């Protein structure tokens, strides 16, 4: 969903987010809903924040116990009379979710195995060249899939040594490698092998896609089968009672029940509720599962794809959505396709296509997306004969995200780093990050100010403490000053997938240049260095398309590229008529006749004369609409994804109040306020064609067009490495034993066991308190953009830790006292801010204190202070490797 859609919500649950403080502009819309039509606003958070101040209900909870709370909501909904009797819910889940699908008889739930799922085993998947993936365990997940189903569960964790195999490796010892698997092992089953063979003869790839089709999944539309998803979900969440929620989260039972009732009362045919979250849900060892649980809850309540409904993923930076679409992520290439990996069946384009193509649903077009992507990389040099240059494309050899990169850096395995718009010297067990930086041969920092990472070699805490001498640091550090957003043309893609163009307003001062300039000039220089090489590995650089020279002489003189040329490459154009832009992803071809860097952005720039991201036509006040004339939302300018479900199975609006997209019988097409997210003329009565590929495999009610089975997933049969259903685990460090299961924390979390990264044992008396870290409105992230600005630093001039008067009394701490906060990794100082907005909670029969600390500070700038992230650990989510910064343990003492 998108923030403005929250204007239409009847209830907004903010959890894992401090929306008012960190997304104040987006928060305009929930406030509008509250003031203008009495929407209920609920905030669930360890601290009473500026968001709580606006809420109708504030529910406190212990940091890290979100799944227990959400699981309680799921159980409440499924047990309620209304959910079981209102035909809306029954119709919605039966038609639009996988509630009726039958799961493999081999599947064992956490209910059966005391907190773990079937398939758990020791992890052995690191490549010799990259032993930094951080797993302590893994699931062989083939038992999680549907019974004889359409999904293609690849068994083990992606991007590790054995992914793609089934059941292998169980007999090997830790660290021992499977012989003869340098190439990832090739496809693992007969069907895939046949598909690869077909694909090897080149495009068109339809026959390959056809060869991948699996038999349809089994269903029980009565939802009574004990192996149906709904029954598994019921059993899984049965233990998440209001009493259990209170014991695990510390939220008083009556408050929890008020939240649950309000959410249920505001869901249904006539009303919709939305859930907003941000990084306080992601930064856990089970962050993906928290979000998954919210999606499950919203699917049960029919709060998806409808106005004022959905799960609002609030992004933490301007254009961070863009940086996952056109990714800076290591594991994906543009448009959410898997990055070629040396450890998967990706040895050739044919293998990659057979491995990564879903034969049913919209992803069946993957060959067109991939070939068009390769054409955007290598242009005319990419031909059918050379697999469109696939062999030139780099491959990954493991987890190359932030934490493993710094672990590898500490091991001396990384030579140099470009640090652009990041400040790792104050982040994530910061002392370890800085010791990694000291092992680099070179470091390039490109930023606005000489922040802590730029200065780590001169003014870091360990240098001031005399532990490390500047003279002993061999890292050569280069600093490139950055221009600001108003100093170049470009686009933002924000939270709602909305691209908005911005124009240059002024020249940057002095040598300041854009990030585009830096990348463009670096590419040009590298291409010059590679020119003439005959080495096969250099051909990718030699053939790389890099034509972004500005047509404006003034910009050319500055060395800045032309951002429209980059947008054109992203949008796509025809190979034989490069001046002709591609208007829709529907037009992409798998034979090299089209070039498109990111299929999801197709249509943003449909002709040289029309940059749709620059559109600024809002709907007039008082008119119900989706503001389709403002910017461009990918894909195809759709504002709400999966909006087919805003109509009932017959294609009629569920209610007049929540009318959005519907089937117009007279015109024989889908119409409405938004661009329908469904084949435009496919009637609601259309039957799925047996054995067909792509969208033909979907019926007129299969609304989730990207899913192979066309429905929303309550139960996730593939794609997650830590389980098909959300389960409450304790954070990697916790002050209590898991009250719900014998399994204390996630059995597959990532932990990097290196010097300087110890974890506290369960309930270690030296670290009795829960600590959470966060942002304030007045500063931004590590402070690299805000601590240099006098108007902002005077609003929050000093680093502080928030604690309750009860804890302050116990520790003899007064307001504004200087205190020391200690985790197993580090000790930092800050001022105490004693406030009743913090409160002790009763957890599993004992009183637990929580403290909170903003992570904005460092030692450079106008306002300085210790970095809260000195204390955090290198421990992360197994799906996405994000660290656990929102819940760990500490002690607080008067300094």
């Amino acid at each position: 969903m998108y923030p403005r859609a929250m204007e239409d919500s009847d209830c907004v649950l903010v959890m894992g987010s401090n929306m008012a403080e960190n997304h104040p502009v987006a928060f305009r819309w929930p406030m509008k809903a509250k003031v203008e039509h009495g929407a209920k606003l609920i905030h669930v958070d360890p601290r009473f924040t500026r968001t709580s101040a606006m809420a109708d209900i504030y529910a406190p909870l212990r940091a890290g116990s979100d799944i227990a709370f959400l699981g309680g909501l799921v159980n409440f909904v499924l047990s309620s009379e209304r959910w079981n009797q209102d035909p809306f819910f029954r119709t919605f889940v039966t038609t639009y979710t996988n509630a009726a699908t039958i799961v493999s008889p081999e599947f064992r739930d956490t209910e059966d195995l005391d907190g773990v799922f079937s398939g758990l085993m020791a992890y052995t998947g690191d490549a010799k060249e990259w032993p930094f993936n951080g797993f302590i365990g893994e699931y062989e997940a083939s038992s999680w899939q549907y019974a004889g189903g359409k999904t293609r569960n690849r068994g083990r964790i992606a991007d590790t040594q054995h992914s793609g195999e089934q059941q292998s490796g169980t007999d090997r010892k830790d660290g021992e490698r499977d012989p003869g698997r340098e190439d990832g092992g090739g496809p693992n089953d007969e069907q895939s092998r046949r598909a690869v063979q077909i694909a090897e003869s080149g495009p068109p790839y339809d026959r390959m896609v056809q060869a991948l089709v699996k038999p349809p999944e089994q269903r029980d539309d009565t939802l009574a089968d004990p192996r149906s998803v709904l029954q598994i979900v019921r059993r899984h969440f049965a233990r998440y009672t209001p009493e259990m929620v209170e014991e695990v989260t510390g939220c008083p039972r009556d408050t929890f029940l008020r939240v649950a009732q309000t959410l249920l009362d505001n869901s249904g045919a006539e009303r919709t509720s939305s859930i907003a979250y941000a990084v306080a849900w992601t930064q856990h060892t089970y962050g993906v599962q928290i979000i998954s649980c919210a999606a499950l809850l919203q699917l049960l309540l029919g709060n998806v794809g409808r106005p004022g409904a959905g799960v609002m993923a609030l992004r933490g930076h301007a254009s961070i959505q863009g940086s996952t679409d056109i990714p800076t992520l290591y594991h994906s290439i543009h448009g959410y396709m898997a990055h070629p990996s040396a450890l998967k069946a990706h040895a050739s384009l044919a293998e990659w296509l057979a491995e990564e193509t879903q034969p049913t649903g919209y992803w069946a077009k993957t060959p067109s997306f991939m070939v068009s992507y390769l054409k955007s990389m290598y242009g005319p040099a990419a031909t059918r004969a050379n697999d469109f240059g696939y062999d030139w494309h780099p491959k990954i050899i493991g987890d190359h995200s932030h934490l493993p990169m710094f672990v590898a850096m500490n091991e001396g395995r990384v030579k140099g780093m470009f640090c652009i718009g990041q400040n790792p010297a104050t982040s994530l067990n910061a002392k370890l990050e800085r010791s990694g930086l000291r092992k680099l041969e070179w470091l390039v920092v490109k930023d606005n100010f000489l922040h802590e990472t730029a200065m780590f070699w001169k003014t870091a805490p360990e240098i001031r403490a005399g532990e490390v001498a500047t003279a002993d640091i061999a890292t050569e550090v280069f600093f490139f000053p950055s221009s600001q957003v108003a100093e170049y043309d470009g686009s933002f893609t924000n939270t709602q997938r909305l691209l908005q163009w911005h124009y240059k307003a002024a020249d940057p001062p002095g040598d300041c240049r854009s990030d585009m300039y830096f990348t463009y000039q670096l590419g040009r220089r590298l291409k010059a260095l590679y020119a003439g090489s005959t080495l096969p590995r250099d051909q990718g650089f030699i053939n790389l398309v890099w034509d972004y020279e500005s047509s404006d002489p003034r910009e050319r003189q500055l060395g800045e590229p032309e951002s429209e040329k980059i947008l054109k490459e992203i949008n796509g154009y025809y190979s034989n008529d490069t001046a002709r832009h591609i208007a829709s992803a529907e037009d992409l071809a798998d034979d090299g006749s089209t070039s498109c860097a990111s299929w999801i952005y197709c249509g943003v720039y449909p002709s040289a004369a029309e940059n749709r991201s620059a559109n600024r036509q809002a709907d007039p006040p008082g008119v119900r609409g989706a503001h389709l004339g403002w910017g461009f939302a990918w894909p195809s300018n759709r504002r709400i994804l999966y909006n087919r479900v805003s109509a009932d199975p017959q294609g009629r609006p569920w209610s007049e109040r929540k009318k959005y997209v519907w089937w117009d019988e007279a015109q024989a097409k889908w119409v409405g306020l938004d661009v329908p997210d469904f084949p435009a003329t496919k009637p609601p009565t259309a039957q799925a064609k047996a054995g067909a590929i792509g969208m033909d495999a979907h019926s007129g009610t299969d609304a989730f067009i990207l899913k192979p089975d066309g429905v929303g997933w309550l139960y996730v049969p593939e794609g997650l490495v830590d389980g098909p259903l959300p389960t409450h685990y304790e954070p990697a460090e916790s002050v209590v034993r898991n009250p719900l299961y014998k399994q204390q924390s996630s059995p597959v979390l990532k932990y990097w066991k290196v010097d300087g990264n110890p974890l506290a044992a369960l309930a270690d008396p030296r670290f009795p308190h829960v600590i959470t870290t966060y942002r304030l409105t007045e500063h931004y992230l590590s402070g690299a953009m805000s601590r240099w600005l006098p108007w902002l630093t005077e609003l929050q001039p000093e680093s502080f830790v928030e604690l309750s008067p009860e804890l302050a009394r116990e520790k003899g701490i007064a307001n504004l006292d200087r205190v020391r906060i200690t985790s197993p990794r580090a000790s930092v100082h800050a001022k105490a801010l004693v406030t009743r907005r913090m409160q002790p909670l009763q957890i599993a029969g004992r009183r637990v204190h929580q403290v909170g600390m903003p992570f904005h500070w460092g030692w450079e700038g106008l306002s300085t202070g210790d970095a809260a992230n000195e204390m955090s650990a290198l421990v992360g989510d197994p799906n996405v490797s994000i660290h656990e910064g929102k819940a760990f343990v500490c002690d607080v003492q008067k300094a």
Partner: protein
Amino acid sequence: MAEPMGFFTDPTVCIGCKACEVACKQWNQLPALDDERRTMSGDSYDNTRKLDGTHWRHVKFVEQFDEDRRDGRWTMLSDVCKHCVRAGCLEVCPTGAIIRTEFDTVVIQSDACNGCKACLAACPFGVIDINPVSNTAQKCTLCYDRLQAGMEPACSQACPTDSITFGPVRELKERAGRRVVQLHAAGEHRAALYGADDKMLGGLNAFFLLVDKPEVYGLPPDPKMPSRQLVPGTLLTMLGALVVGLVSLLSFRDRRAGEAHRPDGDRS
């Protein structure tokens, strides 16, 4: 005169983001000084502390929680010059530097202000203070320069939740009245307007909605004009002006002497 213009500030939708403070300082180029604000106040998230010569908007943070947290709230209110219809500051200004504009707002003309501080004492809300950079009395101008150009004041334009609304006072009062009714219907019976009618200093063109007693937000329950002490006040002002005149003469001498020793001359 054009229609009276003003602000309606509603703390029940204020999220305390302080965008109004920053937008005000940016538009009016008010510096952050090396003063007490380099340290935390310890009073909730309020590090601005008060309105003064370089802070023309100030968000107050009021924490009201029971011991057991069963009942609690955190209210933020963006305070500002009230642009009183009967303005004490304007009345006492000996140099005529303070004027009533065509928008019925109250503005201090810096170039005519001699820094006598009479207005500081005359303001029942403690809004005005000396800006140490200009050494004149300063306060919110309700963005007189922007209004003259047909623009909205910087603070209300920056407010993401419309806690600060700008417009013709007549319209704002209607809007505020509807909000009070709405809050009463929602069970917030303490909701009341402050300064919206002419009983308070003839009416405040920048008025507020409150959900507690005015004192809780640092506002006087019954602000008074200084005119009751008009005669002694005027005498005092005249005396004050005399003293100020002498002091300024002396200070000019001091300043010249000081500048001779200060190579960077940072008084400008």
